[in-house]
C-alpha cells in the first residue's frame, strides 16, 4: 500500500468585507457560502473522504476475512485474534495518527493504517460469529448430501453468514467515515479538513462546520443504505413476502 502526499490547502477564510449579512452574523447555514465554496472546498473534501473510506474498508475487509478464516478453522486462534483487535480499537485515534506521522509522513497511508486497524475490530468478530452461527443440523444435512468440506464452506456456511458479515461491514463503514474526520487534526484531507478549519477560526465558522458535518453524516447514511440494499440482493432467500 503506497500512500500519496497530501497538499497543504489552507482554510477558506470568508471575506467579511463584502460578505452577506448571514456570514457577518456567523449564521449556522449560509447557503451563499455553501454555493460559492462547493467546488473548491466541500466537493473535493467529500471525494477524498469517499476514497479514504473505500480503500480502508476494502483492505480491512480482506485482512479481517483472512483472519476470520484462521479463527474459524482453528478455534485456538480465535481468542487471541479477537483480543488483539480489541486492543487496537481501544487506542485513541488521534494518538495513533500522531505516532504514525514520523514513520509514514504527511501521506494518506498515515490516515489509512489506523482506519484499517479499527475496521478489524468490528469485521473480525462479525465474520467469525456469522460462520460459527450456522446451525448444526444444517451442517449435518450438508454432510448427508455428500458435500465435501470445501463445498460445505462455499455453498452453505458462507452464504448463511452473509447477513452477519454485511452487518459488520455496515457498522465498519459508518465508523470509518466518522473516524476519518478526526485524521484532519493532523493531515488536511477529507471532510475533517473543513471541519477543523471551521473550528480553528476565532469564533468557529458555523456554516463551514455545519455544511461539512452534514456531508459526513449524509455520506454515512448513504453508505449504510447502499450496503443494506446489497445485503438484500445477496440474500434473496431472506426476502419474506
Amino acid at each position: 500500500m503506497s500512500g500519496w502526499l497530501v497538499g497543504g490547502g489552507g482554510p477558506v477564510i470568508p471575506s467579511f468585507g463584502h460578505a452577506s449579512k448571514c456570514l457577518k452574523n456567523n449564521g449556522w447555514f449560509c447557503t451563499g457560502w455553501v454555493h460559492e465554496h462547493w467546488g473548491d472546498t466541500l466537493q473535493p473534501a467529500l471525494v477524498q473522504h469517499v476514497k479514504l473510506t473505500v480503500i480502508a474498508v476494502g483492505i480491512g475487509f480482506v485482512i479481517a476475512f483472512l483472519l476470520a478464516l484462521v479463527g474459524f478453522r482453528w478455534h485456538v486462534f480465535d481468542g487471541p485474534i479477537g483480543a488483539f483487535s480489541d486492543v487496537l480499537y481501544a487506542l485513541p485515534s488521534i494518538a495513533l495518527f500522531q505516532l504514525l506521522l514520523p514513520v509514514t509522513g504527511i501521506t494518506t497511508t498515515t490516515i489509512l493504517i489506523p482506519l484499517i486497524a479499527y475496521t478489524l475490530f468490528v469485521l473480525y468478530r462479525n465474520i467469525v460469529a456469522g460462520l460459527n452461527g450456522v446451525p448444526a443440523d444444517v451442517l449435518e444435512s450438508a454432510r448427508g448430501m455428500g458435500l465435501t468440506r470445501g463445498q460445505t464452506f462455499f455453498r452453505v456456511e458462507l452464504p448463511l453468514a452473509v447477513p452477519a458479515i454485511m452487518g459488520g461491514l455496515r457498522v465498519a463503514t459508518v465508523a470509518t467515515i466518522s473516524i476519518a474526520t478526526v485524521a484532519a487534526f493532523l493531515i488536511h484531507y477529507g471532510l475533517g479538513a473543513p471541519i477543523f478549519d471551521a473550528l480553528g477560526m476565532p469564533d468557529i465558522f458555523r456554516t463551514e462546520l455545519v455544511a461539512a458535518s452534514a456531508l459526513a453524516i449524509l455520506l454515512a447514511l448513504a453508505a449504510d443504505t447502499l450496503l443494506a440494499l446489497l445485503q438484500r440482493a445477496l440474500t434473496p432467500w431472506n426476502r419474506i413476502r
Partner: protein
Amino acid sequence: MLASLFVDAFRFIPDNAHFLLQKTLELAELAFTALGIAMLIALPLGLWLGHRHRGLFVALGVSSLGRALPSIALIGFFIAWLGVGFWNIQIALVVIGLPPILTNTYFAVESVDADVVEAARGMGLTETQILTRVELPLGLPLIIAGIRIAAVFVIATSTIAGIVGGGGLGDIIADQATYGLAGVLAAALCVSAVALLAAGLLGLAQRAAYRRMAPSA
C-alpha cells in the same frame, strides 16, 4: 525509532505519575458521567419501547443516525453553540453513548420469546412484573453488551474533547508540542487501559448474566 519511543513513553509514565493519574481521573469523570446519563435515559426508554413492541423505527433510526454522527463534528457543534465547558462536552458524549444502549436494550426485551411472556401473563404477573422478572433477566446479557460498546465509544471520544481543551487525557494527546510524542503515547496507553478495564469488567458482567440465564451450561 519506535522502540525508543516506547522506552521514552514508559519512562514518561513514572516520571509524571501524579499528573497522568490526575488526567486519567478527569477522563474517567468525563466518560463515566456521560455513560451514566446515557444509561439513565436509554435503559428505561429501551425497556419500555421493547416491552410494548413499539418504536422499532425509533430504535433503528437512533442507532444508525447515532453511529453516523462524527464525534468531532458533534463536539464542535455544541462548542460553537454553547462554548467550551464540562457539561457541553457531556452533551456530545451522551449523544455518542445513547444509541448502542438504546438499540441493544430495545432488541433485548423485544426479542424475548413471546410464549414465555404469554406464560408469565397467564400466571397472573402484572406488566411491570413481566418486565422486571422475565424480560429484564432474559435480555440482560444483550443489554450489558450495549453498555460495553457505549463505554468504549465514550472513553475513546472523550480524548477527542482534548482537541478543544475539554480536559482529561485528551489534553495531553492533542498537545504534542508540549508533551512530546512520548507523552502522547503514554497518555494513549492510559486511555487504552481505562477502555480495556471498562470493557473487561462489563464483559465479565455479561458472562455472569449469561450463566444466570442458563445455570446448567
